């Protein structure tokens, strides 16, 4: 059993290899590790790579460097649960920090969700996604389509599939934080819609206490009824909650209004009925609710379409989301 420090470095090396499109060598891995807060020399990296090869997690490709194996990918998904609990929130924090969307210029990087869909179902899927977008249960009507073989962040669009990219609601947190407002992401939830109005949450999962993404949990359990909500105004859609200090409420609302003008429309202005004393247990903070950008994707599950949703998966230049659904 290797100690936890070493284990973290090994896992980080696997992550670097997974995120790379091609085989990479020890020097580049050492450089990436340095950027990620693991200052390790090239020689030590070589030593770790031999260890990873031995375990069957990586494989050497001639002189080009190494790639991750199937077994290595599996290990990456399972290793060190203690580090991965709240891993969702770590990933969000990192992406939120890197968001660079400018409200005035309307350019910069935003956070995205990616769904991969069987090619045969793609036309039906886009129609349903468009219906969801029209009803307003989303972050932005602008999307991007991906081709088979495309890779974004850690998401690979398999052969025989096509990809759909939507804007993720965490983009809003990026905007708030860039304006000096400490937005703190709390829960992903199922929001009940009645008469086209959001009423209350029926289930919540905190981003802090899970190694799985809450939105993905609700989606895979097929607890949503987004299409019905879009068509008849009654149903359950995905949303999330963050808090900001009460002193910053006014400025936040101003920014959220500006965001709406800039095409980021997911903010739910109507206050959600006080459904859980737990949500806003802290005093002096106010809640901000947002529709999840994954709603148009989750709606596809309801049609029985085989779809894989990777929410909060990467950053993308907002200009690339150029198709209007």
């Amino acid at each position: 059993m290797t100690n936890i420090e070493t284990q973290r470095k090994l896992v980080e090396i696997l992550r670097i290899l997974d995120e790379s499109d091609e085989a990479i060598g020890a020097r580049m891995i050492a450089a990436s590790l340095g950027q990620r807060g693991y200052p390790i020399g090239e020689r030590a990296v070589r030593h770790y790579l031999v260890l990873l090869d031995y375990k069957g997690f990586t494989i050497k490709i001639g002189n080009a460097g190494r790639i991750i194996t199937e077994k290595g990918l599996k290990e990456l998904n399972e290793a060190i649960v203690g580090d991965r609990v709240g891993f969702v929130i770590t990933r969000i924090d990192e992406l939120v920090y890197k968001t660079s969307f400018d409200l005035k210029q309307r350019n910069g990087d935003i956070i995205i969700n990616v769904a991969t869909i069987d090619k045969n179902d793609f036309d039906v899927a886009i129609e349903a996604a468009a219906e969801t977008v029209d009803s307003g249960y989303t972050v932005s009507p602008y999307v991007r389509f991906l081709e088979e073989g495309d890779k974004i962040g850690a998401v690979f669009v398999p052969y025989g599939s096509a990809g759909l990219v939507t804007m993720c609601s965490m983009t809003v947190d990026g905007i708030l934080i860039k304006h000096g407002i400490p937005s703190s992401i709390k829960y992903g939830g199922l929001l009940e819609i009645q008469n086209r109005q959001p009423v209350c949450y029926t289930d919540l999962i905190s981003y802090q206490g899970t190694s799985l993404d809450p939105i993905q949990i609700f989606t895979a359990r097929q607890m949503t009824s987004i299409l019905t909500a879009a068509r008849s105004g009654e149903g359950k859609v995905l949303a999330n909650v963050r808090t900001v200090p009460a002193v910053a409420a006014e400025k936040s609302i101003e920014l959220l209004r500006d965001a709406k003008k800039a095409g980021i429309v997911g903010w739910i202005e109507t206050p959600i009925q006080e459904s859980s004393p737990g949500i806003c247990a802290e005093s002096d903070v106010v809640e901000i609710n947002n529709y999840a950008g994954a709603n148009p994707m989750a709606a596809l599950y309801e049609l029985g379409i085989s779809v894989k949703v990777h929410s909060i998966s990467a950053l993308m230049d907002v200009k690339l989301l150029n198709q209007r659904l």
Partner: protein
Amino acid sequence: MKLKFMSSRIGELICGITFDPRTSEGTIAFNTAVVAERDLERALSTCKLVYAAGLNVGPYARIIEGGESFNGVSIQKGFSGILTICSITIDGVLLKAGIPVQPLCGGIVQVTEKMPVRFTDILRYDSTTLDPLDVFMSQELTSVLEMINTGSGKVLASVREVPMAARTQLENLLSDLMDAEFKGILEVGEPNSDLLEMPVNRGHIGVAIIGGINSMAAVKESGIEIQTSAMSGLADIRDMDCNLLSS
């Protein structure tokens, strides 16, 4: 409607548990699974398989026929309900003995060659309004049948922590529970040490217990439609059948 996080739901249930492992009397908490009536026999034989492999809280179970109700659980016509013991019962036993037990989370344990190795995913009770083990089951992340067949796979378990000062008493109670056929204790950690790679608070011991819902996960893996709801109610142990799974 007020939302209830699992931690508060557990708090309420745990107060009603009075099971005494020495006399095998008192109330226990149960999980409910619902299958179509025609699938009941097949589902039960899978449950027996899981029990025989030791992946269950205890031997007690109960069948509820379609159209009947039992302690707040009603089953529709054409369906059958299977009740199994929920691992929270063990927390209740510890609590009644005066140990301040803190149920923490549910998770997936990777088992390699019959040895539990580590948690690969967890969901904290104070973070969710859905039961963690229900969640993991529906995400199709388990491989209970594979674990039974090959000795390696992924099973559902829950974690609680107790103060390290209570260690001796904890060990005595767990051994009483074993004597009462409650054999689902997976791992008892060392003080201040990770439990199957899951961090435990300072001054505490972590205890991992096999989820009573593993049998239902196995049924699902075998291709039978099954609806589960963990921690669905309380029942007197006399209302449960102690031979149903072992026969």
